[in-house]
């Protein structure tokens, strides 16, 4: 008890020292705001004048130009694009969707792929996964989306292995060389917060429009988690296994290939799972540079408000995502099992053999029954129009319509627009001061300094207003998500059965490509600001709910029991025991929600926003690399500011509570 009180004393001392600076910062900010309100603020203190903004975009353009043309990098990249990469994409394209390229064998009949999925699913996780694998492919074929789905898959089957190999190599390098790891760390955090559109344009310019650019952008986006997981796994190999390797006389190379990498299998496979999921999410988004596939079709259908077809495509994408996720996760936990001695070879390779036989069998069968090879235009069972009618008439029911319209009106007029206008009215320096105060208050000195630097850079980028609008969307969506998500998490955490099923739902929802979240938003609210906030809201609510449940249910039972024995009510227990202990974990969820929102807000640009995303999307049509980069960096810097503040808070907090 005494220790606790001295600690409290310490904390208050620290807070007091901190709060003096904080108060100073806030007073400055409010002075600026007040000055503007009574009209004495000079304009150059309100917004950075045009003249003072450095021509960053032009300079970057010049640099890119130099790299591209003078250094001749573009020849190298184009060579890769037109050579090996295109070759791989053509091959997979031929096999899966029947593109007229070497080896001129495809398309593989859908039924043959479906049976292989059944066998693989069974081998990895029994009948449930078998049903999921087969069901996904049967649905895709029968609903008439086979070709689109295979266009998407043909990019994934090339991108994922390449991203895996590169991530593995870089991960090994980062583990081996400390300087490389230290260099990679900041780059990786920027890469992970950079909006996907920022990857797309350089990919198009350096690697030619079309599947190659899509694949390159996808690969680049999917590499960072693979690097992190590889390094993590290699660091975790038990020292005795390493020593056993040395004592067995391994050379350096043998150590790596025979000891480290196999022993880090679990983490590396988790990396594989993440690579696959990111590849799927990104390939769908390459629709924005005109890549054909599920994403492109979804984009087109949503654009023309064909809700039925959008819904069906959404289901296909979700099924693919869940199938890929479950199968790769099942692979992670699958441990090798021995065969009894004297097991004949065909029994040892039973699964591969059955898959092969069925594959050949169905390929041959499909020669006889063409429907097994391809479900034709007139044969598919798509109910797009009918679903469309159902959804639209459902939405047109008075009560529903009344509710959504009232919500739209309320959110727009009472919440969103006033909030946006307030944020836009704040003078730039005051805004920066407010953000710095927040970071300093939450995370301490370092995050505070970074916030100051990052937001000043944003202010001088020349895109201040759009950045503020981006931030406004993120803040509104996360705030609304917290209002809905946290109570939901708290309620769910009360019973272990509920928390289990909600956690499962959250995990599943997190595997959906972000694009999917636009569908319900557009369905309910049409194409406008509220739909944007709503789509981000559901996307961001998932991690909030998830980490609230995890945080609350990982509070050690002896602590809650102690609270019970002290005669606290449920509410007191929640407020004074469970929340404080769960807060660091919940902060992780909060952080993720903010990062997801920054990601989503850019994607949502296509609904029609006025933020950075909108400008970013416009650059995709042109060749303004510099501008594209500046816009992307703005998003990244804002996201990193919050990331640093919140993670630093969670870490300090965890340390103080002795959790970990």
């Amino acid at each position, binding site marked *: 008890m005494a220790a606790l009180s001295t600690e409290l004393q310490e904390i208050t001392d620290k807070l007091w020292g901190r709060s003096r600076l904080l108060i100073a910062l806030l007073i400055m900010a409010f002075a600026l705001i007040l000055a503007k309100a009574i009209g004495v603020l000079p304009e150059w203190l309100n917004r950075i004048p045009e003249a003072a903004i450095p021509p960053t975009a032009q300079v970057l353009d010049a640099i890119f130009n130099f790299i591209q043309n003078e250094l001749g990098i573009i020849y190298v990249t184009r060579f890769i694009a037109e050579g090996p990469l295109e070759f791989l994409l053509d091959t997979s394209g031929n096999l899966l969707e029947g593109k007229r390229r070497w080896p001129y064998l495809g398309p593989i009949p859908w039924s043959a792929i479906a049976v292989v999925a059944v066998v693989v699913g069974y081998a990895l996780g029994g009948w449930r996964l078998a049903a999921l694998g087969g069901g996904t492919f049967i649905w895709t074929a029968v609903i008439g989306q086979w070709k689109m789905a295979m266009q998407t898959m043909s990019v994934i089957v090339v991108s994922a292995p390449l991203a895996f190999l590169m991530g593995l190599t870089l991960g090994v390098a980062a583990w081996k060389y400390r300087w490389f790891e230290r260099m990679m760390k900041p780059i990786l955090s920027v890469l992970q917060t950079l909006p996907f559109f920022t990857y797309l344009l350089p990919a198009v310019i350096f690697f030619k429009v079309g599947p190659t650019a899509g694949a390159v952008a996808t690969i680049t986006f999917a590499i960072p988690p693979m690097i992190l997981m590889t390094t993590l796994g290699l660091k975790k190999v*038990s020292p005795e296994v390493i020593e*056993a390797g040395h004592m067995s006389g391994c050379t350096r190379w043998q150590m790596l290939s*025979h000891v480290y990498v196999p022993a880090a299998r679990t983490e590396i496979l988790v990396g594989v799972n993440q690579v696959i999921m990111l590849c799927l999410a990104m390939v769908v988004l390459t629709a924005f540079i005109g890549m054909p596939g599920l994403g492109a079709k979804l984009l087109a259908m949503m654009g023309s408000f064909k809700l039925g077809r959008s819904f069906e495509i959404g289901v296909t994408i979700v099924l693919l995502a869940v199938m890929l996720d479950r199968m790769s996760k099942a692979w992670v936990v699958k441990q090798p099992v*021995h065969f009894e001695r004297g097991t004949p070879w065909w029994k040892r390779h039973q699964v591969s053999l059955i898959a092969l036989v069925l594959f050949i069998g169905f390929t041959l069968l499909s020669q006889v029954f063409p429907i097994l090879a391809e479900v034709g235009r007139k044969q598919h069972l798509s109910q797009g129009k009918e679903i469309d009618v159902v959804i639209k008439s459902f939405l047109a029911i008075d009560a529903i319509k009344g509710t959504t319209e009232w919500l739209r009106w309320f959110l727009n007029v009472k919440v969103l627009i006033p909030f946006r206008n307030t944020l836009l009215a704040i003078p730039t320096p005051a805004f920066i001061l407010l953000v710095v105060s927040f970071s300093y208050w939450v995370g301490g000195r370092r995050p505070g300094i970074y916030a100051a630097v990052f937001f000043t850079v944003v202010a001088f980028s020349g895109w201040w207003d759009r950045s503020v609008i981006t931030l406004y969307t993120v803040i509104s969506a996360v705030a609304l998500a917290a209002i809905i998500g946290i109570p939901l998490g708290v309620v769910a955490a009360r019973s272990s059965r509920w928390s289990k099923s909600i956690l499962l739902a959250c995990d599943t929802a997190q595997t959906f490509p972000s694009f999917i979240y636009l569908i319900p938003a557009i369905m309910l609210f049409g194409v406008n600001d509220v739909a944007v906030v709503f789509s981000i809201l559901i996307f961001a609510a998932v991690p909030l709910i998830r980490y609230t449940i995890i945080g609350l249910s990982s509070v050690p039972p002896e602590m809650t029991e102690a609270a019970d024995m002290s005669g606290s009510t449920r509410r007191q227990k929640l407020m004074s025991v469970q929340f404080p202990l769960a807060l660091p974990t919940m902060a992780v969820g909060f952080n993720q929600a903010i990062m997801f929102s920054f990601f989503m807000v850019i994607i949502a640009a296509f609904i029609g926003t006025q933020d950075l995303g909108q400008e970013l999307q416009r650059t995709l049509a042109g060749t303004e690399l510099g501008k594209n980069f500046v816009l992307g960096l703005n998003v990244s810097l804002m996201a990193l500011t919050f990331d640093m503040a919140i993670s630093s808070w969670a870490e300090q907090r965890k340390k103080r509570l002795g959790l970990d």
Partner: protein
Amino acid sequence: MRASTPVISARNVWKLFGPSPERYLKSLSAIRSFDEIRADGYIAGVKDVSIRVDRGEMLVIMGLSGSGKSTLVRCFSRLHSITGGTIEVDGQDIMKLSERDLIELRRNKMGMVFQSFGLLPHRTVLENVAFPLEMRGQDCPERRERALEVIKLVGLDGREDYFPRELSGGQQQRVGIARSLAIEPDIWFLDEPFSALDPLIRREMQDEFLRLQEMLGKTIVFITHDFDEALRLADRIVIMRDGSVEQCDSPDQIVMKPATEYVAKFTEDIDKARVVHANVLTKPVNGHVLEGAPINGGSTIHELARVLVNDNRILLPVANDKGVVTGVLERNAALNVLLGAE
């Protein structure tokens, strides 16, 4: 046996952990205690240790956890590079070996068994045992044959295709032992090989180990923190504390003549009669008149308890294995040991 060249000879070996240990060690002029070194920001894993391991002997290193046992053995096999001093293996300074030579040394001369087994989880028993052979490039049928041989030796035949995960702790350690024996090493290091096992299994494994040792006759460095285990196995015992050696002697000497307070305290609770052999208490004949049947010098006092209690001679003749009388035993001194009155 002592006369032949030692297999391992360590002289003034230091192993310090910390930011720049070499420089720090050079700056040490006077002797500093473990705690003083720690106050300077370094940990003395091994502190000025000189030891020799003779061919064919079983040296047991003992001490509390954190006393530097593992570190010392890892210096012998150069899993750690030492900070100061020299270690020679078969007359060769191992700190001077190139990477290539070091790998050769480990591939041909050294085997090691680890406390938590250190098995490769993705390999079957057979593949684990054959691993060192594979690393040195032996071809498949040959290494398979040798691996099967060692697996049989440790009593795991029939389990070749199992994965470590599918075996019990004791069985896993048998795999570890088999792997370390696959290359027929000259020197065998065992770092608390049985500590992670249940007491019953531990006993069984010790018996098994003694059987192997009798059969193979290797030079062994064995680490344990269990005194009973040490006494059961050792030719000589090294007692370590805070990185330095407190005493290095035969079990009898450690029990009868502890060199320091610490060792005395350490051996306090031991039933000395079970450790001390008649030989150790034997005095030269010096013209004493001897009568009656001699006792065997190789027996422990505990084994002689019945004779000692029932006999009424003051002096008992002591004979070696061949029946030749080598000295006399004062019955009273022996009874003191037996009754713990010493």
